[in-house]
């Protein structure tokens, strides 16, 4: 998730809490909404909150708690609300990306002699996606059975489904082409597989 998207996600979460929100609440809320898609650690969270404060998009106040250390509470400013509204209405500019991890780069640099290892990489990548898909499926089933109206979460889950499916189809293609190249280097088999 790009930095500015995290920033706006947090700004949005702060905006729906006029009474103010503290870091831990934001982290819990963020994870509940996006945990299946994006991970956000506390370091990123507080760096982003500092950035929002410096930009004047949120206002931070110290809240004194009896018997416990005081904590910072964040509220959205008028300028923050304005910035959030602008961003919400701006058409997405994110270009469609292929697999957003290192596999595509590795494919560029793995030499011809290492095709078997590349194939193993493709296969472990597929296992990762299948696990991810299984978690999404479980979440969707729980959502459907809960009967709650989770309109956006459901749409996000469907989007994730479609992306993973596309990535898996691409992995199948990569595997097929790699195998064809490996086969091409070997002596032909006595019984080549045929389509039935």
């Amino acid at each position: 998730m790009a930095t500015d998207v995290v920033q706006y996600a947090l700004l949005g979460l702060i905006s729906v809490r006029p009474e103010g929100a503290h870091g831990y609440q934001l982290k819990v809320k963020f994870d509940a909404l996006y945990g299946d898609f994006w991970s956000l650690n506390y370091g990123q969270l507080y760096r982003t909150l500092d950035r929002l404060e410096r930009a004047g998009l949120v206002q931070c106040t110290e809240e004194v708690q009896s018997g416990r250390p005081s904590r910072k509470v964040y509220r959205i400013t008028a300028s923050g609300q304005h910035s959030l509204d602008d961003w919400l209405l701006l058409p997405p500019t994110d270009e469609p990306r292929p697999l957003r991890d290192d596999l595509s780069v590795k494919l560029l640099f793995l030499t011809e002699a290492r095709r078997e290892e590349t194939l193993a990489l493709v296969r472990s990548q597929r296992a990762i996606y299948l696990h991810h898909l299984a978690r999404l499926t479980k979440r969707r089933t729980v959502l459907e059975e809960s009967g709650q109206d989770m309109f956006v979460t459901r749409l996000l889950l469907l989007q994730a489904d479609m992306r993973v499916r596309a990535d898996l189809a691409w992995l199948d293609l990569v595997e097929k082409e790699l195998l064809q190249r490996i086969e091409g280097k070997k002596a032909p088999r006595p019984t080549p597989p045929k389509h039935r």
Partner: protein
Amino acid sequence: MIRFDNVSKVFGEGQTRVDALRGLSLQIPARQFCTIMGPSGSGKSTVLHLVARLTKPTEGEIYLGDRPLSGMAERDAAMMRRREIGFVFQFFHLIPYLSAEENVSLPLLLDGLSSASVRQQTERVLTLVDLLHRRRHKPSELSGGEMQRVAIARALVTSPRVILADEPTGNLDSTASHAIMRLLRRSSDELGVTVLMVTHDPVCASYGERVVRLMDGQVVEDIDVTEGASEEVSKHVAHRRQDG
């Protein structure tokens, strides 16, 4: 529960010889929901046909429970298919001039059950697939998803130990597909049925707990997609995402 012991299957000979399976060994425990994936011609459907004893292996042996299948008499094999195995196909294979209820009750009528128990069993499975209210409809009056739910009810009506599903959502949209996959999941979880499914669709495969990938008649991947395994992998992904 289902065991493949070094199974090879060859179709044809000479120029037309096709090695559908090459020394396949595989164990599917009872109650597991196992998916078989792989490119066309990798031997996926042959695996289902061998479990149903619709065909015999060229080499090796297949066991259903403790019973080896290749030496089984045709009559016993037919009995086993009717009583212990439920089939779900891509194109539903319902009888067009029979109602939903008649399609579902057919395997029980063939087994000579009393009409009271046929009615009771049929209502039980039609309720399970949420189609009791459509019991009098003919297949042509049902949607694709509903037809497949009738087919699942028919597969479950004999309380089989195994369901063999060959591309059960191949002909359905994604909403109907999810409903079908949830039914298969429940069959495994609540009725203790072993589900062996062939699919091209990874989303469907994600309803099971195991994905076996075949290529050229051999297992190239055997992936556990259950919760524990998935947490390990997601940590790995999250870690890599933070790096990137």
